[in-house]
């Protein structure tokens, strides 16, 4: 059973291959993403993060989820030498670089608790898979060609891992180097990271992309992470162990 809903401005797709899935299971996942959006969206005046940024909520009144996200963000900042930072250039907190992966990770646990073994959750191109697809085969994930969105440039065979891609999307935008705030990343266009789960893949993809070209070396140096970087000339650089995901896995 598969359904796509636009949440947080992007398509979120849940596909449960187990036969017993019904609409209530799908709704449980989408309701969780709606809850996350209400709490963490910097576009919503009513969200907790906006109220924190406007000084309307004191730190003693933060929700448990907000405290967790800030703690995880600080930990990620330390682990990435400051390349991940939710303190944005406009002087406000923007935890969206971590919240998406964390939310997908938690949404997958909702389906685990409901007894599902075979599914994926895809939020705007960041993906957590479990088990097999409806044909009983390992899930196959394509890496989108950043120069032509109708095409893929790699097909990955994924078992239980998370896969996240950071990019300048449509070039020249969005991700800045937190250490040089007036400089945008523009020599690389896409960095895909495969990690033990989507939370790990997403946060390190975001941080490593902000490092520019050396981001792929950073990913290569972290155990359990593999990566595929594409530069603005269409040249890809991959980590030493990346190839194990591009060959058939039993």
């Amino acid at each position, binding site marked *: 059973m598969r359904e796509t809903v*636009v949440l947080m401005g992007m398509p979120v797709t849940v596909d449960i291959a187990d036969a017993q899935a019904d609409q209530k299971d799908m709704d449980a996942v989408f309701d969780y993403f709606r809850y996350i959006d209400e709490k963490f969206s910097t576009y919503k005046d009513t969200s907790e993060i906006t109220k924190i940024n406007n000084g309307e909520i004191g730190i003693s009144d933060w929700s448990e989820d907000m405290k967790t996200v800030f703690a995880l963000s600080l930990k990620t900042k330390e682990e990435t030498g400051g390349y991940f930072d939710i303190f944005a250039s406009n002087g406000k907190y923007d935890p969206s670089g971590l919240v998406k992966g964390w939310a997908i990770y938690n949404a997958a646990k909702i389906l685990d608790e409901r007894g599902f073994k075979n599914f994926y959750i895809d939020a705007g191109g960041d993906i957590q898979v479990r088990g097999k697809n409806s044909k009983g085969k390992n899930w196959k994930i*394509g890496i989108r060609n950043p120069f032509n969105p*109708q095409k*893929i440039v790699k097909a990955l065979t994924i078992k239980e891992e998370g896969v996240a891609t950071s990019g300048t999307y*449509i070039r020249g935008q969005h991700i800045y180097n937190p250490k040089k705030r007036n400089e945008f990343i523009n020599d690389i266009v896409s960095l895909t990271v495969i990690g033990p789960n989507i939370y790990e893949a997403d946060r390190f993809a975001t941080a490593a992309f902000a490092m520019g070209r050396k981001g792929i070396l950073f990913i290569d140096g972290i155990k359990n992470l593999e990566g595929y970087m594409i530069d603005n000339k269409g040249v*890809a650089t991959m980590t030493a162990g990346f190839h194990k995901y591009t060959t058939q896995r039993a």
Partner: protein
Amino acid sequence: MKKFLLSSSVILAFGAYVLLKSARSEYVPVSPATVQNDQITPAPDSSSVPPPQPPANNSGAFKDGQYTGSVADAYYGNVQVMAVIQGGKIADVQFLEYPNDRGTSVRINSQAMPLLTDEAIMAQSANVDIISGATQTSHAFRESLASALAKAKN
């Protein structure tokens, strides 16, 4: 000292790579226009295809049909998407317009970075279940999709 030597060699190797790349230009990447025939949308197998919906099924949040979004300025070009609604729900989102300002020629050096491998990206025709990419979170994508879905509202 060891660290210094290592990082110097990384910088040197990278410098050599950049020089090599700019000096030679033998590889011409596949032009997207020549490879647009094979689709990357996952091929549905017969067991997972949902039963056909009655043509006037408006049970979901949207009216069935295809809805073209606005042309959104993506700074380097325009983005426009089309939302396909079936059974009142989103079945697909396709790109109608997308900027492409990619460099035209590159030279691959397999020794570009220590231990890491380089390659020119190549279009794959393999069927996949899911696609990972940053495209769907871009502002222009969101803008065009939102306008397409506004038209599809019941």
